[in-house]
């Protein structure tokens, strides 16, 4: 990814796919055995692998296997999604599968941060609205869902519905300004970084590790 590809993320619209369950950890999103890689290419093939295939390798009826959800870009989840390991392989696998935004009851912190650096917003809604959205996309996989980061809100335009969504302000600004990929902003600090290093005692007064 190069800086020139960094665009503000303001609104996302797409079909939804629901993955039910609390505490879905990153081992479940991408099992560790698929992390024996030196690039992120091809990770989408193994997203949710252990629940998408049974012990004999036959596909289950997991939503990520089902025809009607191919091409869906908005993932709807319950509580504490993405807990566990810090592996960026998890959001990478989801993103490479086609997920552009996630709506959930809550997210694990490192997972949330990893998603921000990839330009994939994770917004939260209360439990009953999540349940409603899950039932909606389960009964009508073709329905369009919109995540509006400016408001921030989640909408189902076809049904004239709108809910206030939550997204921490720092992350929201990074999406809106196109600075979700932090590196360019961090590099901007230039000499301030050296200046900080110079006032940290363990790097100067009693440095041993250099």
């Amino acid at each position, binding site marked *: *990814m190069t800086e020139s590809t960094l665009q503000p993320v303001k609104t996302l619209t797409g079909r939804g796919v629901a993955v039910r*369950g*609390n*505490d879905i*950890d990153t*081992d*479940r999103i991408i*099992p*560790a*055995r698929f*992390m*024996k*890689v*030196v*690039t*992120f290419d091809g990770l989408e093939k193994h997203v949710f692998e*252990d629940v998408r295939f049974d012990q004999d390798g036959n596909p289950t009826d997991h939503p990520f296997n089902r025809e009607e959800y191919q091409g869906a870009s908005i993932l709807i989840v319950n*509580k*504490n999604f993405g*807990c*566990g*390991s*810090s*592996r*960026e392989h998890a959001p*990478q696998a989801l993103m490479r599968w086609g997920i552009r935004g996630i709506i959930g009851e*809550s997210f*694990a*912190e*490192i997972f949330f941060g*990893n998603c921000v*650096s*990839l330009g994939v917003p994770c917004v939260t809604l209360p439990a009953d609205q999540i349940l409603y959205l899950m039932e909606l996309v389960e009964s009508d996989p073709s329905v369009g869902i919109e995540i509006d980061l400016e408001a921030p809100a989640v909408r189902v335009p076809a049904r004239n519905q709108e809910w206030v969504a939550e997204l*921490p*302000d*720092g*992350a929201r*600004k*990074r999406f809106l300004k196109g*600075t979700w*990929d*932090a*590196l360019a*902003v*961090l*590099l901007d*600090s230039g000499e301030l*970084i050296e200046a*900080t*290093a110079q*006032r*940290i*005692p*363990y790097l100067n*007064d*009693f*440095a*041993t*590790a*250099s």
Partner: protein
Amino acid sequence: MGKSLLQKVWDLHTVRTLESGQTQLFIGLHLIHEVTSPQAFQMLRERNLSVRFPQRTFATVDHIIPTHSIQRPFEDSLAEAMMEALEENVQETGVTFFAPGSGKQGIVHVIGPENGLTQPGMTIACGDSHTSTHGAFGAIAFGIGTSQVRDVLATQTLSMTPLKVRRIEVNGELQPGVTAKDVILYIIAELGVNGGVGYGYEYAGDVFDRFSMEERMTVCNMSIEGGARVGYVNPDETTFEYLRGRPYAPSGDAWDRAVSFWKSIASDADADYDDVVQFNAEDIEPMVTWGITPGQAIPVTGNVPRPEDASGEERANIELALQHMKLEPGQPIAGTRIDVAFIGSCTNSRISDLRAAAEVAKKGQVAPHVRALVVPGSEQVEAQAKAEGLDEIFRAAGFDWREPGCSMCLAMNPDKLVGDELCASSSNRNFIGRQGSPTGRTVLMSPQAVAAAALAGEITDVRNVL
């Protein structure tokens, strides 16, 4: 009003406040391993950036390394490719690499402390969620994703959202047979796997004051399992004594300057906390998990919960967990037959863990149906254990003694559960599929409890064999 250690360390390392309201935080120590770093180095190359402070990054190999033989090339070509990528990356950038055979290789969260790299008042980042371990020294240490590994390599800084601080006090005296692992399993069971989101946990009180550094590391290690990205203990004499004489610790005059800085960075007596919780040490028993999150833990003398005693979502969580674990509602957890016993991982593979487990191993033989392995956390732990004859004790009892690495904690190497094997494990995660088999089952407990389970062939109260 005084400040907490977290606030002081945060302020000291703040480069600037970003437009987003986040802090650009200087990272004093960056640790890397083979799984989450190759893509970060690749991203640097794509942007034509170099490593800004190569002397502040240290590398090890731990996740994929085989524990039966470290002969190169590794049998697993994927593991070999990851190892080669790491070797190339450190060579190209001048990052120090604790390679296998150097005497310094090991699990990233074991080697930082034992080499004296981890020190009070530092900010420490690593592409690994258990980086919270290093908080035991009074450092602010957190796990990051690969894009952030790239950020640290390129700028030695990160964009971070400020954290709130919850002080968790455990006062009184632990009962005999109750370990640091039991304390953290208890805390997570009480506060929930989500309870720490947005917080750094400051662990304090009588129990932590008395704990050794290794015990503090065990607790801080699992902060992330309670949702807290950071967990720390204020530095004190125990911390200083541990660091004295370690390879990367200051010495001579510098030592005194270091100690005075370390003392100054501890939380003030009148520090302001966003939340305070208190527990009684006497209430804590040896704990084991019965489910599929580290928060699903009960005393080993307890019974597995019944879904019908809970409602709504909690009930569904219990049902799902029991179904995966193949346990009956309401059954006593003790007496559950195990197939595998694993002593290792960054939670419990240090020398004190192995000593405690060996004490138990001395008392019998591994049950015939149990496959038991001991994986030291590092080459230094391995050498020390051998010097004390612990490897012989384990072997004599029927345990398999292995080379250091992460091993069956996450099964990226050949050490895996097969089918629905049930594993008594001293690691930190019992997630579905964590130990390499989608139907495998993990029961978390202290290393001495794992040893006791290995001998008994079933989950058992370690106090019966002590």
